[in-house]
């Protein structure tokens, strides 16, 4: 039980899963990392490189059903009471997501002139990702038992989640096909340190009144969990010790995969911009230390019933149950698909300041406009319905070397998500900081979603760019 509590805690504290929506970074081309959200982003600095390990640090987490405060508030209410009310107020569609990315190295350079160029960017980042749905029915059963739920069918399909650590080596190109259109693509090689996936579960447990016995009680279970790189912890109940080996595994796991990002920027008019990207079309083949745990079968529990006409005893109910729904372990390879992310945006720019001697020093981004407003759409595949977020944004060049983007985002986590990003440069030194759900900073413990991105780069413009 203690392990479950620790696991639960870990999930809550450190897990904000696959939200991964980087609505502030997206198309914020003053920051080179915006190319990671759209390989066809309008970035054309002469060259840039990130400060190793400091160029891109991002973390985000979200919970649709409840906040840390709901469960851990230090308010004298019994923890079990709080847990009960959290479980009562959530559904199996509520989820916890966690994503952390750490850029290890990154860089890029332009081949050719500004009006006809190919841009090359490359790097490596490490990522931990988790997505867990609230297993509502199994939790209800564990908390309360079935006594008050005669007639209810508990859905075992509520058990749904995945978690993984991957490192990504990537190489991207984008090219301005003509004055209006930029196309880009990025190839990725994934290496997976560990993976745990349990997404295709089904089954039920029910208890209903019966004529022959007190109850009709049936368990139908079709549960399975795929894991790689974790058997040592699961089978031997070994604690996670960290250390060099674990670190090595997290950064350069033994399992390989391939992926592709595609994107474009299209300017039908000088002050109108459309962009779009599809990220992580790809898979990872898990071949090392893989295990599939299954829990499959049907058990119709009648009770311990004598048969006076047949005196041979049975094996016993506990034994019958274990025989009917055995826990099997299979060592076999499996493949996981990466969660695919789709971004799209529309931007209208205004307040042309080119006459004023001001310049937009970051890319050709909408030429000399000082302000931009627009909308963005984000979608990500999940084991259940896709995650969708809609963002309205306002961009402004505050100073020659200081750009700002403010966002308002609506998604299943929050309707009041206001974000702010700033990117500033002093010479070649470039720094950015982005945070969302700023209103939640009034009380962080009640926040249901938070994301933060931070990084330092060196960006070199053309001499005439200054």
């Amino acid at each position, binding site marked *: 039980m203690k392990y479950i509590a620790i696991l639960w805690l870990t999930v809550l504290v450190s897990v904000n899963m696959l939200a991964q929506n980087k609505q502030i970074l997206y198309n914020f081309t003053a920051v080179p990392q915006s190319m990671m959200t759209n390989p066809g982003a309008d970035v054309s600095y002469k060259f840039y490189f990130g400060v190793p390990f400091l160029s891109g640090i991002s973390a985000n987490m979200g919970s649709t059903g409840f906040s840390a405060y709901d469960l*851990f508030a230090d308010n004298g209410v019994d923890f*079990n009471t709080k847990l009960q009310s959290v479980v009562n107020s959530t559904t199996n569609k509520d989820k916890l997501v966690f994503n952390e990315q750490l850029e290890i190295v990154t860089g890029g350079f332009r081949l050719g002139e500004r009006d006809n160029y190919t841009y090359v960017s490359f790097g490596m980042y490490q990522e931990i990702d988790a997505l867990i749905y609230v297993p509502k029915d199994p939790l209800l059963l564990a908390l309360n*038992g079935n006594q008050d739920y005669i007639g209810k069918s508990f859905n075992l399909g509520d058990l749904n989640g995945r978690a993984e650590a991957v490192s990504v080596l990537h190489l991207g190109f984008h090219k301005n096909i003509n004055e209006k259109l930029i196309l880009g693509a990025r190839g990725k090689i994934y290496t997976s340190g560990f993976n745990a996936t349990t997404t295709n579960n089904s089954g039920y447990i029910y208890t209903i009144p019966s004529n022959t016995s007190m109850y009709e009680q049936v368990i139908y279970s079709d549960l399975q969990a795929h894991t790689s790189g974790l058997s040592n912890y699961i089978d031997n109940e070994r604690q996670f010790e960290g250390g060099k080996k674990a670190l090595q595994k997290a950064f350069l796991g033994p399992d390989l995969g391939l992926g592709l990002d595609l994107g474009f920027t299209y300017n039908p008019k000088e002050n109108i911009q459309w962009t779009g990207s599809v990220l992580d079309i790809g898979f990872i083949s898990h071949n090392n230390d893989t295990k599939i745990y299954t829990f499959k079968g049907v058990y119709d529990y009648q009770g311990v019933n004598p048969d006076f006409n047949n005196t041979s005893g049975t094996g016993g109910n506990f*034994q019958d149950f274990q025989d009917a729904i055995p826990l099997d372990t299979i060592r076999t390879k499996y493949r996981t698909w990466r969660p695919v992310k789709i971004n799209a945006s529309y931007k209208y720019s205004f307040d042309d300041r080119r006459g004023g001697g001001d310049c937009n020093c970051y890319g050709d981004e909408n030429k000399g406009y000082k302000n931009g407003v627009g909308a963005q759409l984000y979608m990500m595949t999940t084991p259940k319905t896709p995650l969708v977020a809609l963002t309205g944004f306002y961009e402004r060049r505050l100073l020659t070397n200081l750009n700002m983007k403010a966002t308002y985002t609506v998604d299943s986590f929050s309707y009041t998500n206001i974000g702010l990003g700033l990117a500033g440069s002093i010479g070649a030194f470039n720094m950015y900081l982005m945070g969302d759900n700023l209103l939640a900073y*009034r009380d962080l413990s009640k926040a249901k979603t938070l994301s933060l991105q931070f990084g330092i780069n060196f960006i070199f413009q053309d001499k005439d760019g200054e």
Partner: protein
Amino acid sequence: MEKKSTIRNILSVLLLVFLTPSCSSDLDFNQSEDLLLTPVIVANLTNFDVPAPDFVEGGVETTVAFEVENFDVFRDTFFRDNLQQADFLFVITNTIDRDYVIELILYDIFNNVVDSIVFNIPASAGTPQVITEKKTYQNASLDQLKRTDKMGFRITMLPGTPLTESSAGSLKLKSSATVYMEIE
């Protein structure tokens, strides 16, 4: 000069963002150690339904029936360790015109009797005889119950109006267990 003021501006904006007062209500993650699950589970215990003709074999009455079944739920240490209380509920319906004694005998692995529950069932004179009985195991009696490994059933038919292979009625027993768990 202009550059300097730019730097100052950038720094002040970044500082402002960093220093924006943010608060957090007090959280206490240690309270998860208080986690205590208290599920109450109902389940079938045992049931049988013996028709009157089954008490007659070749024209001769069988007055005693006995049967032992394995009862292995307490082999599961998790269940055994977290069980706080068990209630057994029995509903017996007799529609046979004979008195019966039903004995439920619990044995440990050495076939020692752990507990025995006896029901005296009056004969049905046209109307069904329904007996409902509840037995609760707690503390010492629960510890005793946890030793159970087998369950024996003895039905004794007491003297009365003779039965034939076409006699009507049956002796029916339904029972359930309500188990109270406390899981830390």
